[in-house]
């Protein structure tokens, strides 16, 4: 092939990529995370209590039940749930920064977590930055600083990806195929499967590893506390029920990590709430990890009682 036809082919291929990018940008205007960012933008300015976390909290919080359980009822705060599925503390810190920049009345942050989430430094591989985690591309510099502090390579990679919808939003393209895959994968499976025994052993080993390594909280979790402190927001860290059996939560690995996390939360002037055993009956879970709407109602009511008891001690 001579130079001229080759150039023509390359230009045509580039034109296809440009059209593809525009098509992806148009098709992903209504993704869950775009809707989430729009919802966050429209959060009531009188919000005083903010929920933050991943799917465990997104599914586990019933704001109506939480507010109803608050005592005294007349002092129940305006609440807003900024929890989003498939996110890590990095996205939570980005969301908190956005929320606090426009919600000046927020006084309480309720942050739900499970397992080793508070200490885990999240990965930024090609297969990791998908689904809701693509939210990071909306804030490339801030996200890169939390994922890999000081890394120019991560910063420029995030910047480049944020400009290319076909890369940043590729999960959306795959979602329809994924729907079919999940439906087929669920055929013949029990509706409320419990985690396998060997999975729990692996989780326990990971938890023990966090305590042994003693690296403290991840950069993103430290940023959460810094942002909250800067605006005088009281942080409640809630250890969520994540579907493990009670024996696991009472086992040595979970207890050791709980004590480790509690000490660090309190060192950051936060309050720690161990809610891991609040919901034990599997009928209140919609799958292996996530609470059902009924489970969320029960959980949120108890959380509302617990937090109002700590915030409004005079009400007792």
């Amino acid at each position, binding site marked *: *092939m001579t130079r001229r036809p*080759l150039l023509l082919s390359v230009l*045509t291929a580039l034109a296809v990529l440009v059209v593809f990018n525009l098509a992806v940008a148009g098709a992903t205007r209504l*993704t*869950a995370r775009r809707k989430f960012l729009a919802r966050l933008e429209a959060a009531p300015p009188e919000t005083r209590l903010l929920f933050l976390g991943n799917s465990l909290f997104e599914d586990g919080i019933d704001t109506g039940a939480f507010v109803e359980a608050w005592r005294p009822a007349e002092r129940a705060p305006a609440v807003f749930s900024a929890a989003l599925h*498939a996110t890590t503390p990095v996205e939570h810190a980005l969301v908190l920064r956005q929320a606090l920049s426009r919600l000046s009345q927020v006084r309480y942050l309720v942050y739900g977590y499970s397992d080793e989430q508070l200490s885990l430094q999240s990965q930024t591989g090609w297969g990791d930055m998908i689904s809701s985690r693509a939210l990071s591309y909306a804030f490339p510099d801030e996200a890169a600083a939390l994922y890999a502090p000081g890394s120019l390579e991560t910063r420029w990679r995030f910047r480049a990806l944020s400009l290319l919808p076909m890369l940043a939003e*590729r999960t959306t*393209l*795959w*979602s329809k195929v994924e729907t079919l895959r999940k439906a087929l994968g669920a055929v013949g499976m029990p509706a409320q499967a419990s985690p396998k025994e060997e999975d729990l052993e692996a989780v326990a080993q990971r938890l023990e590893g966090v305590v042994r390594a003693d690296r403290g909280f991840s950069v993103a979790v430290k940023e959460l506390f810094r942002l909250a402190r800067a605006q005088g927001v009281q942080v409640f860290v809630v250890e969520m029920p994540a579907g493990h059996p009670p024996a696991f939560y009472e086992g040595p690995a979970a207890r050791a990590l709980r004590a480790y996390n509690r000490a660090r939360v309190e060192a950051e002037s936060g309050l720690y709430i161990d809610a891991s055993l609040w919901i034990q009956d599997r009928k209140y879970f919609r799958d292996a990890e996530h609470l059902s709407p009924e489970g969320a109602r029960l959980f949120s009511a108890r959380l509302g009682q617990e937090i109002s008891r700590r915030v409004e001690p005079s009400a007792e």
Partner: protein
Amino acid sequence: MRMLLRLKDLLEYVGGSADTPPEGFRPLSPVALGLYWGLLICAILAFSGQASKFIYIDF
């Protein structure tokens, strides 16, 4: 069998491992070749990096 061989020759040509198309086919124009490679890149980008991950439905 002959059809399969022609298909193989055709795929080898569009895949770039053969310089000339099989008998009866005209060589692809530079624009058609560009379209083909552009669409191929799009397909690869759309499906890469997601084979072994649990991902949430997000649309």
